[in-house]
């Protein structure tokens, strides 16, 4: 095999000044973790990370790398010495391997001291190829477009590249507490955060017996999907039943959901602070349900000044569904179990709740005590590479 290397192109690192080195080190670490099962060596420099395939097929390695955030593009490359002779024979060998008919050469001369300019190099190599093989040059619709990058120490040739996940390397931006219900939206929101380089820790509100314990199995399967993008995920399960029952006993029905969401945010912020997370994140999408109107969000968020991220705020439901299918969580999310938001659903939930009313209703019961009780009962589970692991 001639193309025996993968070249990883960085994402939006050009906007990073002094942090660049740290970002690259972080990405290199993540790449090495992802490639550990393959036993491949890799090396990073200012512009790229190189993965040495040895005799391995590039496909599974490429597929794995496409799940690592912070990678813009991945090319399958062949490396040769920085001389015209080596470039000529390597280009011919690579094209023969690709089994194509027409080709186009795209030369990038990074080493400006090379005697020929990039056009000169392209013409020279093309002449060499056309003399020795039954290929044709086609500048508009070539079967293979070969990228030739000439550096001082070596030359890299590539006919094939694919887009990566984009975003930033995971772990560079800190971590957030993600509210995970088991529905369609929250796993997609978690994925969006991870893709951006933000580490997520998940918090689930459980209301047994109103919610089934089977929901936890569902979350386990969802986290196994997300483990492809973040190798270790912490899931915390918070017992919410008593507080929820108190809400329904004391608050008028139309306000139950609003007050419930206010309590959830209070609990989530407390958990986030405890875990040293920098923000709380939810899968809310503006306008989707009664508690997600702008009026509701305003009244709910009034309980805290802690940052709340809503990665799906303006996404269409269909777009969210499409993404959840792509990351593999859709079929898990639609399994029919109730979560804490769907039980005792009010017949007419308030879409434009008023803050004064909320404050008034919350005075009717001692929720602070119940909140402390909820927090004391939190259980923690870790998921690593699709399997439950013990706390570290």
């Amino acid at each position: 095999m001639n193309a025996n290397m993968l070249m990883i192109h960085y994402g939006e690192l050009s906007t990073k000044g002094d942090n660049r080195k740290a970002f690259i080190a972080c990405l290199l670490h993540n790449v090495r973790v992802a490639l550990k099962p393959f036993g491949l060596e890799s090396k990073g420099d200012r512009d790229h990370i190189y993965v040495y395939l040895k005799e391995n097929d590039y496909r599974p390695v490429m597929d794995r790398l496409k799940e690592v955030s912070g990678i813009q593009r991945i090319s399958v490359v062949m490396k040769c010495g920085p001389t015209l002779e080596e470039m000529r024979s390597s280009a011919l060998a690579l094209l023969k391997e690709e089994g194509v008919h027409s080709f186009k050469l795209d030369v990038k001369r990074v080493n400006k001291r090379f005697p020929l300019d990039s056009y000169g190099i392209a013409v020279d190599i093309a002449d060499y190829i056309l003399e020795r093989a039954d290929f044709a040059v086609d500048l508009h619709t070539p079967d293979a477009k070969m990228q030739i990058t000439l550096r001082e120490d070596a030359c890299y040739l590539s006919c094939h590249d694919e887009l990566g996940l984009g975003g930033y390397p995971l772990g560079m931006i800190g971590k957030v507490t993600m509210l995970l219900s088991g529905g369609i939206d929250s796993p997609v929101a978690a994925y969006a955060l991870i893709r951006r380089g933000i580490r997520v820790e998940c918090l689930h509100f459980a209301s047994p017996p109103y919610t089934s314990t089977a929901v936890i199995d569902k979350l386990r399967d969802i986290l196994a999907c997300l483990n492809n993008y973040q190798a270790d995920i912490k899931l915390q399960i918070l017992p919410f039943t008593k507080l929820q029952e108190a809400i329904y006993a004391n608050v008028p029905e139309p306000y139950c959901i609003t007050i419930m969401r206010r309590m959830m945010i209070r609990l989530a912020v407390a958990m986030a602070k405890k875990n040293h997370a920098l923000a709380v994140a939810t899968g809310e999408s503006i306008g989707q349900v009664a508690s997600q109107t702008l009026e509701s969000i305003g009244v709910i968020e009034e309980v805290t000044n802690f940052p709340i991220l809503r990665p799906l705020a303006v996404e269409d439901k269909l777009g969210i569904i499409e993404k959840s299918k792509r990351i593999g969580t859709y079929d898990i999310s639609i399994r029919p179990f109730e979560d804490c938001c769907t039980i005792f659903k009010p017949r007419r939930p308030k879409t434009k709740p008023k803050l004064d009313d909320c404050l008034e209703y919350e005075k009717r019961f001692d929720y602070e005590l119940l909140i402390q009780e909820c927090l004391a009962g939190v259980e923690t589970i870790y998921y690593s590479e699709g399997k439950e692991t013990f706390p570290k």
Partner: protein
Amino acid sequence: MIYLDSAATTLPRKEVLDCFVLAASKDYANPSSAHGFGRQAERALEEARKGLLDAFSLGKTHQALFCSGATEANNLALKGIALQYRNRGKKILVSSVEHPSVLEPAAFLAKEYGFDVVLLPVNEWGRVEPKTLEAAMDNQVILVSIMGVNNETGAVNDLRALSEIAHRYPKCYFHSDLTQAIGKVDVPYSCLDLFSYSGHKLHGIKGSGALVYKNSLRFVPVLHGGGQEFGFRSGTVSLPLCASLSLATALSLKERSVNLSFVQGLNQALVAGLDPSFVRWNSSSEGSPYVANFSLTKHKASVLVEALSREEIYVSSASACSSRTDKTSKVLLAMGKTKEDADNAIRVSFDASNTLEEVRIFVATMNRLFKEVHAR
């Protein structure tokens, strides 16, 4: 743990498991093999078959075909008979509360082969009234399939009267799914042209079952292949499963009447104990005491099943109820119950291994949960 879901499945008896292990390790030859070792396995298989038929006292008139369970047996009964005798008529009658393994093959025959499938309505207690069948019968009917005991409600059909009506028409065969009936209620086996059941409902092993049929019947096979089981069900026969089914069947029929009166006591304790302001009964005292079905008047069935499960008490909600998917009990709807009742039904099913103490604990737990758990 209190297990009150025996209509779903039962614990295999120790004798049955021992029988399985012995047959699997001693007579592991293929019964179809021509050599001596194979013939030894074949003899053991035929003994199992004879034992099964003798347990029903049908050794002279009927034949038994071993298969994987009631679903397969029902498929073969419906499709096999309908296709074999389709030149005699194109009408099939099935009760509207049959198990899906009867209803779906019937729907398949209607869709793919143009059979006229008539769903027989049931009365408010889930039984097919003989006069309903009488009115639906005509010369075109080649098969009637009516279950012995309903799996959700325990309703018992009068198979003697129903089969007698069907047999007034000489071209018509009468089939019954006896999965919840064998070893539990009294069944007039000799009146039936064919019947199906599963081993695991009577302390046998999952994956074993049989279709018992009158000697003269022929089937178009569902599984084609090496021609085992009289050519009607190809595939290497599992002697261990067949032998264990035969034993489980014989034992459960032998203990039937003793167990029945004991389970009646359990059922009565349940009916008398549950707070009547929270339940509406879907099972009648004339049904099988092994199955008790009631709808919750104020609570969600799925929530109570979960709450019971957290206390290690296991029952079924007749519907895997959820706000997101519609899983309303079709059986209860067919009995004329409201959608709310059909959505919130609980099935308690007994077994002779349950105790009166277990029923008392269940009743007390339910009555407590009715007050503790938020209503729907």
